[in-house]
């Protein structure tokens, strides 16, 4: 029923998170009716982003240059470092306006069942930054899941005595990702962070 090119677009769209086959079809039909510049603009934006993006050489968040915008910003407090599992957790923390330090993206959380050991996370890089950047407080903002908690505990034991280690206060929905927490709750959790 559909032509090969429509089918290709629909199946590509349907692979995106949160988009089922029916929504994919609706989007494809929408693009069909839109002027051709729209389709070109969208396609170019996607290619442009994927080609320009690379990990920040310091914190491993997204960057388009050597450094991400946060690491490149001299006004950020270098003595404060916040460890997160994924770059997607940075945005919700930024939105709270309660945090002025820098970040470090671990690239996941411990899970021996899935074969994820400390060596698979960017922990050595984190430890190196503590001295290099003159960090005085490490805020551990891994997800409030069991893997996130275990990662926090491992990190805290590893750097204890070298810097102050804090963890977000409880009250975040347990088992969820930080990106799903609302700003108010997350802001409170940041302000109320406690020593680990």
């Amino acid at each position: 029923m559909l032509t090969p090119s429509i089918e290709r677009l629909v199946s590509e769209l349907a692979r995106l998170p949160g988009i089922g086959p029916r929504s994919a079809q609706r989007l494809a039909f929408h693009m069909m009716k839109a002027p051709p510049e729209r389709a070109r603009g969208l396609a170019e934006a996607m290619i442009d982003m994927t080609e320009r993006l690379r990990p920040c050489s310091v914190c491993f968040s997204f960057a388009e240059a050597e450094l991400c915008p946060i690491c490149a910003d001299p006004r950020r407090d270098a003595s404060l470092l916040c460890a997160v599992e994924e770059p997607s957790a940075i945005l919700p923390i930024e939105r709270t306006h309660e945090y002025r330090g820098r970040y470090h993206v671990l690239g996941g959380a411990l899970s021996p069942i899935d074969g994820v050991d400390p060596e698979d996370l960017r922990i050595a890089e984190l430890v190196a930054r503590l001295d290099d950047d003159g960090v005085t407080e490490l805020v551990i903002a891994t997800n409030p899941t069991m893997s996130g908690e275990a990662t926090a505990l491992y990190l805290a034991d590893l750097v204890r005595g070298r810097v102050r280690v804090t963890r977000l206060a409880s009250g975040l929905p347990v088992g969820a990702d930080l990106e799903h927490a609302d700003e108010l709750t997350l802001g409170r959790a940041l302000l109320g962070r406690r020593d680990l």
Partner: protein
Amino acid sequence: MPPAPDWVARRLAVADVRCWDRAELDLPAGLVLIVGPNGAGKTSLVEALVLGCVGVSPRTAREAEIVRRGAEALHVTLDLDGPPGAHRREIGFAPGRGRRLRLDGDPVRTLASWRARAVLVFLPDELRAVKGPPAARRRALDRVLEAAAPGFAEDLSGYQHALAQRNALLRRVRAGLASEASLPAWEAPMAELGARVARARREGVAALAGPFASWLADLGGGRGGALRLETSPQGLPEIAGDALEEALAEMLAERRPREIQAAQTLSGPHRDDLWIGAGDADLRREGSQGEQRTAALALLLAARDHLRARAARPILLLDDVLSELDPVRRRLLLEAVRDGGQTLVTSADPGAADALAAPPDAVVRVEDGRLHA
């Protein structure tokens, strides 16, 4: 505080469940007898009622088995009264497409937020709860504790998750794939959650022991009925308060070398067992089939009493238990459940209730895939 209202199934409607094409059943609050020849579909009705409450079958983990042959999907609608009020609960299952849940017509995403721990079930193979492996007895005990205290299920599944992670890490360490440096990160949640699980089991068994002994005597199983938690490691949960968590953490740390060798966690609440006995006799191993059946029923009735006191009295589902009991015990059991909330009893014997002083509140006849009230 007034006691919570009993759980009561008011109406059960099934479509395409095993041999049932369609069936609708109105149920009164008391004792309901479901009679019909073997293979007529009595157990499938019990199974459907359990599905309507907890969303999983007590008979099989392969849900596709429950869908009537030739049908695309099964549906169960249950009108259930209980502490949260009266609600219409719907569950649909289609092989390959999974489960669909609704509450009062609205879709519900997760089983955990839909599930009503409203039933205690006795299937003929429930003897596993007495004579089976420790895991079967632990499971039977945990099911009661899950229904009695809202936090227990989370503590238990959290403990099991942390245990699985630690065991995976022990295997990786033994295989030389990982260092043991991150073991403590999994031992901390194991100690915290394990202490809560151990304490809840200890308190639960202490509360069940009295009712168990008196039900065992009432059902003709003799005096001296006793339940004890056989803890792993021995004696640990007797430690009070926060010291228990510390003791568990110390034990895990101490046993690391040996457990790396074994590539598994050798002791802890995941190895607990329940001692079930009468006098000095260990009914788990020494009891006759009949004694074990009586003990399993006494355990179930004790659980019902416990839940009534702690949460709400559950619906009791006794499938095909009468045929295995002698006439005296049969009458004792039916009298025991007579005024104890809603109880559904299935039997192939049309005269199953004849011995009762007063007739059951309803008798449902099942024949050729049809219901006769």
